[in-house]
């Protein structure tokens, strides 16, 4: 297992893992905006920059992003060198100009002493920081209903043709992973609306809660080759059912726990 030094501490980290995990395991805080355990690292926000030195390479030294740099034996990592802090400050300053009204960015920038941007304010403030988490989680689910559109300064996240996305199943994964709550949705009992598309909900036959969209159930059923009915029952009820079965098998109480839901 590679052994490295992070801010003076000796840290062991398993092969094939990234610096970010090693830093966090050592209790060292690294700011991140585009990283999430559910998706592959991306390296877009550049907040997790750290200074790396390889002593046996003649003191070779470079700034890298911790979320993508694989751990190596013998390297020395400085997570708070002046140029690391300065780079983070400028990045946060830039993000604050882009998203002046976004609480998460305000707070993060504030923690680096940036309370007001030194750049030109975005005339159309947005909460989207283009971290790419929403598109990556959607890809991860195997759906890819939304994507990045355009490039450079004009880049944004949108569904195809900026119309309600045909492939979207309304699972809300993008909205839930979004660190700034930029992706809005409406949910009521029985209906859901996201990206301008309306979804009909399935009710759990046991508890009656509308917990999954019809499209979602169809998608997962098709993908996993199981009958749709499998996805109709909500997770909570499934757990209860499982518990009941287990109890039954163990020869315990026979009170059916399943018929409790109100329709």
């Amino acid at each position, binding site marked *: 297992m590679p052994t490295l030094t992070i801010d003076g501490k000796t840290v062991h980290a398993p092969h094939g893992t990234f610096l970010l995990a090693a830093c966090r395991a050592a209790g060292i805080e690294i700011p991140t905006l585009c990283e999430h355990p559910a998706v592959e690292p991306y390296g877009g926000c550049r907040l997790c920059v750290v200074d790396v030195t390889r002593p046996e390479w003649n003191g070779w030294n470079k700034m890298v992003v911790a979320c993508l740099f694989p751990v190596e034996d013998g390297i020395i990592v400085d997570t708070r060198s002046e140029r690391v802090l300065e780079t983070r400050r400028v990045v946060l300053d830039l993000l604050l100009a882009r998203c002046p009204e976004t609480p998460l960015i305000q707070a993060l920038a504030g923690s680096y002493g940036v309370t007001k941007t030194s750049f030109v304010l975005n005339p159309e403030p947005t909460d989207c920081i283009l971290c790419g988490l929403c598109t990556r989680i959607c890809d991860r689910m195997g759906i890819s209903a939304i*994507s990045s559109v355009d*490039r450079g300064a004009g880049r944004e996240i949108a*569904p*195809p043709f900026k119309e309600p996305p045909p492939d979207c199943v309304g699972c809300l994964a993008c909205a839930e992973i979004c660190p700034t709550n930029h992706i809005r949705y409406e949910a009521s009992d029985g209906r859901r609306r996201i990206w301008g598309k309306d979804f009909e909900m399935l009710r759990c036959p046991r508890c009656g809660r509308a917990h999954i969209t019809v499209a979602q159930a169809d998608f997962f059923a098709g993908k996993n080759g199981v009958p749709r009915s499998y996805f109709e029952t909500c997770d909570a009820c499934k757990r209860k059912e499982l518990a009941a079965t287990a109890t039954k098998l163990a020869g315990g109480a026979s009170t059916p726990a399943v018929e409790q839901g109100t329709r």
Partner: protein
Amino acid sequence: MERVPCTDLAPVDAILARYPREEPSLIQVLQDVQRAYNYLPCEALERVAGELGVPLAKVFSVATFYKAFSLNPQGRTIIKVCTGTACHIRGASQLIEEVQRRLDIGPGETTGDMAFSLQTVNCVGACAMAPVVIVGEKYVGAAKATTLATYLDRGE
């Protein structure tokens, strides 16, 4: 986005037939579609996505990322003004202004009668003849604002 309806997808199918049904064909197919229609009709993108097995969102992403593609119908004659460095320092901006003045369209726009579209390109590799304008298929080297008019006669 405004959709411009397109009904004849036969050319798209003919193009698709020439390529393997896989993601690496995407950009190549879109190039040919762009050439066939002068733009990428929404319906064509949907057909391409379905046939290549690439999610429509990815197709849209690629179609908007690359400058060779446009989602709006282009004029019958496309005027490309090179704004590469060599052309820039030899006065490309005056050429753009000239087209703008004469046709009343800015870069990326098309005249109301669909006769002309104005585009800018970053170097077409003819820098020795800078500034360069391409009108339709014709390369005009050492272009001057005053002589550009002859190429902009309507109905070319």
